[in-house]
């Protein structure tokens, strides 16, 4: 193996990669520092005192982070149940059954991705207000589900389409009913794809700000809303701790699905 130091081409490479690393990890380091900074003011480049008192405050019974965390997890869990519950039958029908107006149905499921959702959330809040759904957990779950459902249907359709039809036909010819075949053969085979979409919908709901801001606030507080209010009040420690709690599951998900993010795998998407 050649020594790195002898190859002059590593100078521009190291400069470029170092700059990119600074751009990406500089802001993230900043977040970590704020989360453990007790005292930090200008012109000191680094915090003057480190500690976890803010963590204790945030998670104390009087602090509002515990409530927001519980709300966020409950809302995300219910969103997954609704989204996946509706996406599995829809995805199966889109992938396997002959459907009239299939193109129109697909188009309707594409539309939410093609329009900015802010005007939509504003008017959902207005409609929900008439039904007393504003400021309720159910209202927030419905908004999150309308967003997550679209991804879930897409992924479920792809997962069912990728399955080998012959296995289902074999089960049917051995006398299993259509429902039995679906539950015992199709569903277990599609489970990895469905699980990935469930995790994705969960994270999308956990991180959602705009819809919760219009429909939930101020009665239903979630972690993103807590982060926003703490940050707006200049309470950067609490905002950073909340941000860190939101960041960890997302990064963990990235590391888990790392192998799916490789270019050679992605190049097969849509084939």
């Amino acid at each position, binding site marked *: 193996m050649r020594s790195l130091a002898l190859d002059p081409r590593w100078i521009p490479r190291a400069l470029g990669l170092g700059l990119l690393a600074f751009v*990406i990890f500089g*802001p993230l380091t900043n977040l970590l520092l704020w989360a453990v900074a007790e005292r930090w003011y200008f012109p000191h480049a680094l915090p003057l005192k480190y500690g976890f008192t803010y963590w204790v405050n945030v998670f104390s019974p009087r602090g509002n982070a515990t409530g927001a965390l519980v709300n966020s997890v409950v809302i995300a869990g219910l969103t997954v149940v609704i989204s996946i519950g509706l996406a599995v039958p829809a995805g199966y029908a889109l992938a396997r059954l002959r459907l009239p107006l299939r193109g129109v149905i697909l188009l309707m499921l594409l539309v939410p991705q093609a329009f*900015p959702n802010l005007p939509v959330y504003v008017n959902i809040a207005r409609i929900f207000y008439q039904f007393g759904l504003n400021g309720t957990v159910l209202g927030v779950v419905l908004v999150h589900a309308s967003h997550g459902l679209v991804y879930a249907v897409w992924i479920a359709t792809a997962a069912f389409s990728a399955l080998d039809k012959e296995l289902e036909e074999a089960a049917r010819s051995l006398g299993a009913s259509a429902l039995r075949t679906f539950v015992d053969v199709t569903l277990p085979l599609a489970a990895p794809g469905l699980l990935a979409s469930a995790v994705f919908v969960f994270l999308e709901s956990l991180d959602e700000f705009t819809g919760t801001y219009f429909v939930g606030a101020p009665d239903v507080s979630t972690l*993103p809303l807590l982060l926003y209010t703490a940050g707006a009040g200049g309470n950067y420690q609490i905002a950073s701790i909340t941000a860190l709690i939101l960041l960890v599951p997302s990064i963990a998900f990235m590391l888990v699905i790392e192998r799916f993010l490789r270019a050679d795998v992605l190049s097969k998407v849509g084939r």
Partner: protein
Amino acid sequence: MPQHLLGLMLVTPALAIVVLLFLVPLASSISGAFEVAGTVGLGNFAKAFELYGNDMAFTVVIVLSSTVLIGLGSIAISGYLTLGSNPRAVAILRWLYRWPLFVPFIVVGQVLRTFLAKNGLMNSMLIESGLLTASQTMSFLDWRGIIIAFTWKQTPFVTLLLAGAMASLDRSMIESARNLGASRPRILVEIILPQVMPTLMVGLILGVVTMMSVLSVPMMINAQTPTMITASMAFRINAYGDYGVANALGFVSLAMTSTVAWVYLRQTMRDQR
């Protein structure tokens, strides 16, 4: 039961949610924009352009500049991933560029607010390293901050799509161009880029729709006027409960994105065939 009826029955609940919670509010946002005191009129638009005309121009400038930067950044990174000669440098870059992909927008807003401030870590580090003096520092928490936030967060997504498209290209043409002595930048621009253009466009258009939907970044990074119309919409509702003008602003943002969304839908439909 006939198969198409069963299929419709299975799709209907999901479609009902999309219709009730997306298409109906979308329609009411459009009709609300034209509703003035119970009748149809353009009063909301007159008020919206008068009060928020600057914000509209600001939004267009922000979205266009971010899109250009995201495009250039993703071409550069995916180009190096495809053509880089040193496997170790390519591996480092592949590990590095993806991190912002899974950072939620609300976290991006918070992180960059503290990083880019006049007293933030970026300026402190530049002072410590001797590149700046304390009097030369300035805050980036204005239009530049928003552009930086969007570019930081969206470039990995477009890069991911673009690198995927580049990896599926036929290598033989690239190899023969290299054998004829073409430089790598030239191969990237003249041979690879034309073939992956559709993917790049779809990625950038999805980015535009996202930028027009994100409320947290302009509210957290740019707490002043002019601001993006997303923030103006929220302000109009929270401060005045004025749905008419808010919906007119919403209609403007729909008009801005539907131009690009039309291209996106046409592309997707064509790819599915």
